[in-house]
């Protein structure tokens, strides 16, 4: 299971969990599994989040994720 860390504001949309375990091999599968388990997260995912895997922001939905990876959803960052 990949353990996905949510920012705490999302907790109330994910059954009060800040770490949600999901079965996933890629970032896409991870996001799909998250929203399948907790449909209330969908507006936030659709609005845009950044996915951090082992400290790197990953933009490729096909990028692999593994159970030992550190995975965080964080606010989408815009630069100047």
């Amino acid at each position, binding site marked *: 299971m990949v353990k996905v860390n949510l920012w*705490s504001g999302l907790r109330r949309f994910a059954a009060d969990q800040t770490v949600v375990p999901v079965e996933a091999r890629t970032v896409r599968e991870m996001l799909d599994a998250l929203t399948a388990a907790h449909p209330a997260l969908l*507006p936030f995912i659709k609005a845009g989040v950044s996915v951090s895997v082992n400290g790197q922001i990953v*933009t490729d939905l096909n990028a692999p994720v593994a159970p030992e990876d550190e995975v965080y959803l*964080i606010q989408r960052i815009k630069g*100047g």
Partner: protein
Amino acid sequence: MPKDDLKTGYRIVGTRPDRPDGLDKVTGRARYGADISAPGMLHAAVVRSPHAHARIIRIDASKALVLDGVKAVITRADFPTGLTGEDWNLQENTIAGDVALYDGHAVAAVAATSKLLAQDAARLIEVVYEVLPHVIDVDAAMQPDAPVIRAGTADHSVPEGMHPNVVKYIDFGHGDLEAGFAAADLVRAQTYKTEATHQGYIEPHACLGQMGADGKGEMWVCTQGQWYIRRMCSAVLGTDASQLRVTPSEIGGGFGGKTTIFMEPLALALSRKAGGRPVKLVMSRAEVLRATGPTASASMDVKLGMKADGTLTAAQVNFRMQGGAFIGSSPVGEALSCALACYTIPAVHHEGYEVLANRPKAAAYRAPGSPMAAFAVESLLDEMCRELGLDPLAVRLKNAAREGAKASYGPTYNRIGLVETLEATMAHANLKVPLGPNQGRGVASGFWFNHGGETSVSLAIGEDGTVTVSVGTPDIGGSRASLGMMTAETLGIPYEAVRVNIVETGALGVNEPTHGSRATFASGLAAVEAAKQAIKTMCARAAAEWGIDADAVEWIDGAAAPAGPNAGKFPPMSIAEIGAKMGSTGGPISGHHEVTAGGFGASFGAHVVDVEVDPETGRTTVLRYLVVQDAGRAIHPAYVEGQYHGGAVQGIGWALNEEYVYGADGRLQNTVFLDYRIPVASDLPMIDTVIVEVPNPGHPYGVRGVGETGITPPLPALANAIAAATGARLRSLPMSPPKVLAAIKAKANGQG
């Protein structure tokens, strides 16, 4: 000062060749947005709301349309309906629908055969308004009695019961906050405010747009992102993106403010209505200040817990930011994520609110959100260090974020260079300069994420062996030089043999704008990969001529050569020789690379400023200034130093002078540079810089990106220096002379 064992000893990387755009700019040859003209061109003028919030009852253009030479007038009725989300925001900001949402909001536009005629015609367009109550201040906009700007705008994140102007809520953190504060020897909390400031680019927005009734169009425009212009204009106009060709001009500053659209669709819509004649639209400075993106204004609460030895035990921030009348425009999420990023603190909690106000739609501004956050956090940290009698730099080093530590925003840091940056700062001679009466020294740290993003680069070998690189990231800070240098380094040819062009939207795949300090990082990464691809082809051409296997050829110093004695004995074949005969050896040789670049590395900085405050007037003079920042690798150190200078200067302006001043009527009072005063050379000392190099392992040359971090520490560094000089702590920006004087007097009266 490279800090690891990534390859050093480059021929070109790290040197300081002449600027590729220098001669064009100093001789006036560079073509900016307003320099582009076309046969049959019309000129546009825009009618703007004089009210902060008003219902548009009627627009009557009949008097304008009868003028000889007026070719088109447009209102919102000339744009498609049914847009949603950010597309709707962009359209609404381009031209108001039923309601003007801020002073300066466009409500109509006119195209005529001369600029003067267009301006006269604009004055003849009659707009009848019903003035509505307005709100400017972010805290006032959250109050129960605040006028509702647009009901139903809030997204899912906002808890029930908030005012409808609160449109986003963010909440994150980790650790036991209560235990963290309980473990502290000193807990302090304060509130800080910053006013909106403008990016202050010298070149106003300007474009030339042409569009036929068939939806095919062209645009020449000063922008940080031609593909963003294409996508956003097409969305607003209801046309297909691929039918619009956008060519970026030379750019006279952007700083994030030119990553979006403001008036560009107006030129295209006017052209479409005027039978396809090209339409030039150039903003005045007043239009730039009233109607293009400043950054947000902010109101921020910070609470910190610290042990007697300076160890931070807990931190709590609550930020409110307004980014105008449109959701998603404030950088409150970025501000929260940056607020505590310099430190490893066991318990942190961040809370933020985005709030609508009757102000222009905020745009990105250099490290969006981070300077305000730093002002609040770094100011309070400084206050607590002074209260405990601790060295503020030593405390920053003690708590500094390091590789392997959990970032305040969640993930674990990879290789970062804050410790090295602080150590270099503490070793600098500026810290040993004695200070005189009314003088004070302030320090602060700063952070920015940096970014990678969608990137497409092509490279072509010329018939003489010189090289053209086509990139999609407009050059706002020296990226033509850095990209040319990395390309030349990779190819083993002179820097002068490479030309880097910023190309139009038809020439490459989609590129994100130059934002997030990404141009040298991401376009550089792609240019290096494109060069490697071309090298592979050139090696294959040489191998074919020599009759040996391509794997038996290597690329050394700009030439193909047999790889070892077993490959055969052939003299190296230079890039010029290969280029000269490529037409008869298989055709043109090029390289191409496209990627959504990951692997970017955060950049940390530390600033030290000495000021003198005149106790009679409250005027602050900056005596000396030091910027120390991790560049990863400085490809062209002079440009990196330029970015450090520029960040410091914009930060000094933000700290001391710049602010949007609104009247009680909600109109912007200071719409020219005489009244909105950015720093000029005579306001500034020479700025010292130290480039720290902790290479980013995610880039072939170690680049991190340097454009944004430098604006983050100046706001608190100045506040801390003024506090040291006067004993008066200012918690509201700008620290203009009247405010500093009032704070000094309050302190003298025992109120500070």
